């Protein structure tokens, strides 16, 4: 499409040059801090800051020898896996209902399920903490699990819904016509068809959980740390070279995860 081709006038050319400069500046703005973290992770200096004194891998070694960080990683991974599994099951069911059926109160339910997206996380943190304490459920892993599930649920519903819209029901109708019962149809036709949406929703929920910090600070038991709260606690003193190394590791993981996710979704889509 070249309908709105940049104007050949001098005014237009100047405008486009300005836009280009602004965009390049924004890209530098977005990537510079990340590059700086990775750069400093390899700095041999003890201060965790500039100037660069030499190349070193020692901070990565220190990192993997630090038991509390390894422990935090385990907690974060278990929490992300369980809470996103829960959120995905509940969310996919809701998304199926919202895409596949028309029923009374649909609009209202859609709004209700999206409401938490604009809820300040601090308030959410306070509310669940108080309520579960009232029900004699003190800060614990269970509170974290329930909380993370609720936090990622609206995202899963919206994301899966968006992916399901294009799905036609003719495949299922064909299966029924050919004699499959409802359960067979679901497992042999519907499930394979929606699996890319499920994988996408799951990975997104897992990322949200792994990344969550504000609400987690309210819900976690003192002594239990997830990776973000661990980093937050370490930052209370100062930026150490170890945190930069941890940051570099996290950057690589969090950039790889969506890449793998996207690849898998495409593979699934092709196999279908």
């Amino acid at each position, binding site marked *: *499409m*070249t*309908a*709105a*081709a*940049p104007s050949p006038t001098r005014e237009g050319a100047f*405008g*486009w040059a*300005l*836009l280009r400069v*602004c*965009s390049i500046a*924004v890209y530098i*703005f*977005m*990537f510079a*801090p*990340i590059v*700086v*973290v990775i750069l400093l992770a390899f700095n041999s200096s003890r*201060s965790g*800051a*500039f100037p660069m004194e030499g190349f070193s891998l020692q901070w990565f070694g220190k990192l993997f020898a630090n038991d509390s960080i390894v422990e935090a990683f385990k907690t974060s991974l278990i929490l992300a896996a369980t809470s996103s599994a829960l959120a995905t099951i509940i969310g996919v*069911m809701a998304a*199926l*209902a919202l895409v596949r*059926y028309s*029923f009374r109160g*649909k609009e209202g*339910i859609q*709004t209700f*399920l999206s*409401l*938490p997206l604009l809820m*300040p*996380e*601090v*308030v959410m943190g*306070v*509310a669940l903490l*108080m*309520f*579960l304490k009232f029900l004699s459920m003190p800060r614990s892993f269970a509170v974290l699990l*329930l909380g993370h*599930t*609720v936090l990622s*649920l609206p995202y899963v519903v*919206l994301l899966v819904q968006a992916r399901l819209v294009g799905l036609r029901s003719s495949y299922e109708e064909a299966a029924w016509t050919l004699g499959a019962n409802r359960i067979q149809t679901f497992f042999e036709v519907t499930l394979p068809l929606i699996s890319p949406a499920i994988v996408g929703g799951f990975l997104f929920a897992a990322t949200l959980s792994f990344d969550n910090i*504000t609400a987690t*600070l309210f819900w976690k038991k003192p002594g239990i740390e997830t990776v*973000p709260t661990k*980093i*937050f606690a370490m*930052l209370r003193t100062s930026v150490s070279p170890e945190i*930069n190394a941890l*940051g570099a590791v996290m950057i690589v993981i*969090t*950039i790889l*995860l*969506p890449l793998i996710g996207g690849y898998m979704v495409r593979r699934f889509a092709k196999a279908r």
Partner: protein
Amino acid sequence: MSRVLARPYLLLSPAILSLSLLMVAPVVFVLIYSFWLRTAEGLDVPAFQFGNWVNFFNDYFYWMALGSTFKTAFITTIICIILGYPTAYFLARAQIRNRGLLLFLMFLPFWVSYIIRTMSWINVLGKNGFVNAVLMGSGLIDEPMKLLYNDFSVIMGLVYFMLPYMIINVYVSLDGIDRNLESAARVLGCTPWQSFWEVTLPLSLPGLGAGSLLCFVLAAGSYVTPRLLGGTDTLFFPDLIYEAIISQLDWPFGAVLSIVMLVALGLVIAVYNRFMNLSDVYRSFAR
């Protein structure tokens, strides 16, 4: 009700139930808690009294904190518009070959851990940070500048966090505009500027509005960024809530502050919804 008619409600019930039990009920409970009495021994007793609320309304400090929080969120939103709109326009309209790659790159930092992205600004702006190292190395300054632990660094961190939200919302909005409308404006004698002001900008307002609301609400509700990048005199409302609940263990007062925060942001959202469509904002999350 027949079985088929009940099916959507059955499928929806776990989602509705979990949100009602783990979000709606807790928020209602916070409101109730805000009337409870905190005794001298530090026990919270169920009661219906307005002491906590009176304390809040009488203390000018909390109003100032709310004001400064909203001011910071507002400045963040404006900067996001100024930086985000031209970039989104460029991504949507420029004749570039690798648009897909550029869009992908824009969202890569988005996936990087929030705490790491926030922390990275300490490395950039700190006393021995990147900016000072470069400026001192080139001899432009002799003393490191104080760029960190003030409102400037808080706003930098918030803009960094919010900018991709703004860009994607504006981009999608611009991308959905029928190009023929702009061509028509040009054919009918508009200058490029006029066709932008009279056609493109008004049609992209839903995206700009959705992005702005998200920026404002998420910035005003953030706790970690002001905490890590702010100075000792940085006043941020979510920080006061955390202090009341976790540090001072004054839960009834923390409940008051939480409700105030919720109502204040709720008002902003209500005003927005009066002029724009809230469902644009929700939908933007699914992109």
